[in-house]
């Protein structure tokens, strides 16, 4: 039994289903990556795990509890952190205020968590009083991840964290994500840069048209000739 798992999920936004019997799971301290061609339902699968769209079949289990009926807000309270692909920071708020808002549901003292986020992303400490909208793309992503970490989640979900950033920044972000995973958090992410993402993944899911096509360790998927040919450009 995995720490977080979406089992046999079938559902979509409207009448037509996008996901078909799709299963995704991740363990504590591990990185699971969802890859696949455009329109494969990668983001949809992650949103289903987070409760942003309804699945009529299947269930989502977090730490042994069925959370299928919870709203996204309640899932945050249950220990899930979510970083959307776009509009994932409060642009008119300062970096520090962004982190404070991330900790909004916490009633205890969160200064220690903030210090840890600053340790993870030292640049944010430097720019703590700057508006998040003034930061570069990579720094914004760091704010977004930092904001989600403020609730001290047990699972962190990232929707294409490296979309639109330069290759150097991408490497940096992946390093950050590995650091986060090392603290014992389960990480589930959707990635467009499949090769690099699978490189750091403990587990990879290749989705095609809303269905599980390949599921294996990142290493094995990278070595799989069929996966290489179809999804990684040879």
């Amino acid at each position, binding site marked *: 039994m995995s720490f977080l798992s979406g089992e046999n999920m079938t559902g979509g936004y409207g009448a037509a289903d996008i996901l078909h019997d799709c299963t995704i799971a991740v363990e504590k301290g591990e990185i699971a990556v969802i890859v696949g061609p455009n329109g494969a339902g990668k983001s949809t699968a992650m949103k289903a795990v987070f409760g942003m769209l309804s699945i009529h079949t299947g269930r989502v289990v977090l730490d042994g509890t069925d959370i299928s009926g919870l709203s996204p*807000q309640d899932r*945050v309270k249950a220990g899930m952190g979510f970083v959307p692909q776009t509009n994932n920071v409060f642009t*008119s708020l300062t970096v520090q*205020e962004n982190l404070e*808002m991330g900790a909004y549901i916490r009633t205890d003292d969160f200064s220690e968590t903030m210090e840890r986020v600053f340790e993870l992303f030292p640049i944010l400490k430097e720019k703590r009083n700057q508006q998040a909208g003034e930061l570069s793309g990579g720094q914004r992503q760091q704010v977004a991840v930092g904001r989600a970490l403020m609730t001290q989640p047990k699972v962190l979900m990232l929707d294409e964290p490296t979309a639109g950033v330069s290759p150097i920044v991408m490497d940096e972000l992946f390093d950050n994500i590995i650091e986060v995973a090392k603290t014992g958090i389960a990480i589930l992410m959707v990635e467009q840069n499949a090769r690099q993402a699978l490189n750091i993944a403990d587990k990879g899911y290749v989705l095609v048209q809303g269905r599980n096509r390949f599921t294996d360790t990142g290493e094995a998927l990278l070595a799989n000739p069929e996966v290489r040919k179809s999804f990684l450009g040879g």
Partner: protein
Amino acid sequence: MTDILNALILFANFVLVPATAYGAQLALGALGVTLVFGILRFSNFAHGDTMAFGTMVTILVTWWFQSMGVSIHPLPTALLALPFGILATVGMLLATDRLVYRFYRKVKAAPIVFVMSSVGVMFVMNGIVRFIIGPDDQRFADGERFIIKARDFKAATGMAEGLTIKVSQALTLGIAVIVVIALFWFLQRTRTGKSMRAFSDNEDLALLSGISPERVVMITWIIAAALATIAGTLYGLDKSFKPFTYFQLLLPIFAAAIVGGIGNPLGAIAGGFVVAFSEVTITYAYKKFLRYLLPENLEPDSLVQLLSTDYKFAVSFVILVMVLLIRPTGIFKGKVL
């Protein structure tokens, strides 16, 4: 030299002082509009009549106090009644939200639906105010009227022109400064204020962070009610209270909010003064002012008034149109309507 001084005193007396007070009143009104726009994402057409409602309650309580002989002389009794006016308006706006806007939020109605329903709310509120206090002019200012009287000023300085500063004008500016500081402190420093800014900035992410929209909306209405009542009461003390005038204030208030950049509180304040000063300088008759400054043979025969005061709303309207054409985000980069 005395001519130049006299011209300046004249200008201060008829333009600078009244426009500053008027600007502060508009700024407080525009702050309410801009906050509601930032959080609830619609232009609240009922704001002028909300001001009228709050002022009406304040006036009724003022009269009651006056009849009991309660007074805070030399300050106007209305200041004492103001908290009651604010409370009643808070109740009114929360009830309106419950009865009208909450439904549209639930069905995720388009912004224009909110705007139109606020027009409905405006008519209802307008009717309530006229029904209770009547459509006529009401005067409720008491206490000392002047800080500096024109005659005393002339006697003290020996100038031909006098400067008048009314208590209501000084009060307006003083209270506006306090209210603005308090509001900005609240928005910048408190957890609730920050959550309101976060909600205004990015609603989805705010929901994801566990910020409760209903709470944010409620606090917004409470602040809007307080701002509207304070602005309305100060305007009424400075001029007089007439329900129709308050309805008409909607135009300069919206012009102020949009000039400054709607959704941006700092912009609302700047916009209030821009609109007030434009209105007053354009409708002021400069004949006497120029007579002090120009040589005798160049003295103007006409009033040298760019626009009759009857058309003062045209000024707001022109500003509004110009801003929307040239810089729709306003001075301080607010949102585009």
